[in-house]
C-alpha cells in the first residue's frame, strides 16, 4: 500500500524528468570519454595478434589463457588482496573500536595518525618499509639484539613482508569508512545490550559487527582493489620473484611494448578484481542492507 503511494509520488512530470536527464548529460559524456572510451580501446587492442596492432585475432588471449603460469599469477594476486584485507580487518577493527571509546582529544590524535599515511607518497612509504624489514633493518636488529633470533629473518622479498607493509599502507582505506559508519551507531545500543545481560564479546559480535558491516565492506573493497594493484609496493618490497598481474602489465606495456598482451593482462586484472569486489559487496548487502533501508 505504501509502495503504491511511494511510486506514485516518485514519478515526476514528464518535462521535469527530461530536464533532469539533460542535466546529467555532461557528466555522462565525461564518463563516456574518460572512462568508457579508453576501456573499449583496451578491449579493442587486446584483440590484435601482433605488437604493431595490425593483425586482429585472438592470439594474445590464447597465449595468456593457454599458459598455466598465468593462472598462478592471477590466483597469487587475488590471494595477496585477500590476505591484506584479512590483516587490515584483524588490526583495523580493534583500532576502530579503540577510536570510538577514545576521548575527543585522543580521537584527534588518532585521526592524524590514521590519515598520515595518505599524506605521504606511496614511494616514500614503500621505501620506509625496506628500512624497517631489511636484513639489517629495524625489526631484525631489534630481534637480534634481544637474542630472539641468531640469524636475520628474511622479511623483504617475501609475501609475509609484503602483506605486512601493504597492511600499513592500505590501513587508512579500511579505517576511514569503518570509523565513519561506527561513529554513527547509537551509543545506547551498547548499553542496551549490556543491560540485557550480554557480555562485551556478545555485544561486539551480535550488535556492533553486524551494524558496522557497511563500513567494513566498503573498507574491504577499497583495500582489496588497492592492494591487488599496488605495483610499486609489490615490486619494491615483494621483489620480482613474487609475480603479480601489475608486474606483467608493466613489463608488457613498457619494457617489451607488447600492448595487445598488456591489454589482455590488464583486462584480466580488471575482471578478477571486479569479480571479487562484487562477491564482497554481495555478502555485504546481504548482511548489512538493513542499515540503508
Amino acid at each position, binding site marked *: 500500500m505504501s509502495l503504491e503511494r511511494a511510486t506514485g509520488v516518485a514519478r515526476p512530470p514528464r518535462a521535469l524528468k527530461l530536464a533532469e536527464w539533460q542535466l546529467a548529460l555532461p557528466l555522462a559524456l565525461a564518463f563516456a570519454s574518460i572512462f568508457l572510451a579508453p576501456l573499449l580501446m583496451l578491449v579493442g587492442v587486446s584483440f590484435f595478434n601482433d605488437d604493431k596492432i595490425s593483425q586482429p585475432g585472438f592470439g594474445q588471449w590464447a597465449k595468456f589463457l593457454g599458459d598455466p603460469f598465468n593462472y598462478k599469477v592471477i590466483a597469487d594476486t587475488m590471494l595477496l588482496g585477500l590476505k591484506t584485507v584479512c590483516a587490515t580487518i584483524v588490526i583495523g577493527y580493534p583500532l576502530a573500536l579503540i577510536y570510538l571509546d577514545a576521548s575527543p582529544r585522543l580521537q584527534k590524535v588518532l585521526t592524524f595518525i590514521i590519515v598520515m599515511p595518505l599524506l605521504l607518497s606511496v614511494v616514500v612509504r614503500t621505501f620506509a618499509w625496506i628500512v624497517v624489514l631489511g636484513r639489517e633493518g629495524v625489526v631484525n636488529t631489534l630481534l637480534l639484539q634481544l637474542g630472539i633470533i641468531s640469524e636475520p629473518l628474511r622479511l623483504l622479498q617475501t609475501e609475509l613482508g609484503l602483506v605486512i607493509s601493504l597492511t600499513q599502507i592500505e590501513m587508512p582505506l579500511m579505517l576511514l569508512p569503518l570509523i565513519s559508519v561506527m561513529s554513527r551507531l547509537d551509543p545506547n*545500543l551498547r548499553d542496551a545490550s*549490556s543491560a540485557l545481560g550480554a557480555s562485551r564479546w556478545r555485544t561486539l559480535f551480535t550488535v556492533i559487527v553486524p551494524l558496522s558491516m557497511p563500513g567494513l565492506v566498503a573498507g574491504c573493497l577499497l583495500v582489496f582493489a588497492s592492494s591487488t594493484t599496488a605495483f610499486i609496493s609489490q615490486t619494491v618490497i615483494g621483489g620480482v620473484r613474487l609475480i603479480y598481474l601489475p608486474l606483467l602489465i608493466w613489463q608488457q606495456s613498457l619494457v617489451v611494448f607488447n600492448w595487445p598482451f598488456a591489454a589482455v593482462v590488464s583486462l584480466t586484472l580488471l575482471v578478477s578484481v571486479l569479480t571479487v569486489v562484487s562477491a564482497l559487496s554481495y555478502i555485504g548487502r546481504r548482511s548489512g542492507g538493513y542499515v540503508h533501508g
Partner: protein
Amino acid sequence: MQNTLTSKAARALDVEDLSVRYGTSTAVDGVTLAIEPGEVVALLGPSGCGKTTLLRVIAGFVRQAAGRVRVDGSVIDHLPSNQRNIGIVFQNYALFPHMTVAENVAYGLRARGNRGPEVQARVSRFLDTVQLGAFHQRLPRQLSGGQQQRVALARALAIEPSILLLDEPFAALDRNLRLDMQIEIKRLQRTLGLTTILVTHDQDEAMSVADRIAVMNKGKVEQFDTPVAIYDRPQTLFVNGFIGTTNLMNGKISSLRNGTATVALDAGASLDLPAPDGVGLGAPVLMSVRPEQLALSAAPGPDTWKIEPGLALPIGAQLVHEARTVDGTFLKIIEPRRTFMTGAPRAYCTLAADARPTLFPRPT
C-alpha cells in the same frame, strides 16, 4: 496468565549519599533515596540536573565517585551492568535495528543462555502483553514510535528485571499516545509489582505516573515526596517554582507566636500563617500562593490588598485574571467562571477560603 507475568517479590532500592563527578564538575551531589519495593519513583528536574546520570549509575553504565547503590540491602556497585538484572528503556528506545521485534525481545533471554521453544514462548507472551503479537517479524524501523516503545518495554521486561528504569520514556510520543502509554506502563507495573524509576522533565507526567517524586536541581534532590505533598507543600523555592504555577509576594514577619507568624505584605495586608523554620522577627520573607488560592474582592478589609486589575482570560471552566499590586508585583488569580458578574469593580485581592500559602526566607 496473570501468574506467569508476576515476578518474584518486588525489590527495594537504596541510593546512599551518591556523587558523580565529570572532571571538575559534579553531576550528582550526595543523593540519598530510599525506594520501597513496588514503588514508582519519578526523578524530575530540568535538563542537566543529574537525573539521567543517576539513572545510568543505577544501571551500571556510569561509576560513581562516592556512595552506594543497594538492591534489597545488597550493594551492587561492583557488578557490571550485564550482571545487575536491571531493565532499562531508553529515551530513543535503542532497539537493535538489524533484528526483528521478536529477536529484540529474545535478546536478553539468549544472552542468559536460554534456547529453544522456551524463549519463543516467553517472547510471544511479552509481545502479547504489550499488544504487539502480530508484529513479531517486523523490523523496528517498520513500526511507529509508540509500537517501538512497547517493543523496548517488552524487551526490558522479558529478562524479569529486579528494577525497571525508564529514561524519558514518553518524550518522543505525541500527546494522545503519551497518555495511553502512561496508563499502559502503570498497568504493567502494577501487574508485575516492579520497582520502577522514571526520569522525566515533565511534571504532569511525574504527577500522573509516580507514587513519589524526587525533584532534582544541580545534582541534588530538593524534595522527595508524594505528588500531592510536593504540590501543596513545596519545601524549597526551587520546588515551589518548578512544580505548577505560583505567585511570589514580598513581606516581613511582624510578629511570631506559637508557630504562627504574622506577615506584613509589601502589597499592603497582614496575614497569619504557619511560621517557617529559621526565620526571626522582622525577617524578609516570600509568600508563595497558587493562583487558585487567591480571590478577588470588591471591598477592602484587614486581610485584603489593593490591586489594579488587568486582563481576564477564560480558559476552560476557569477565568485567569492578571493584576498588579501597589508594590509592583504581578499576580495571577484563577477563579471558577461564573455566568454572571457583579457590577462593582473588584479592586481588592485576598486569600481564598482554603488557601495554604507557604512562607520562604527571602534569598539575599
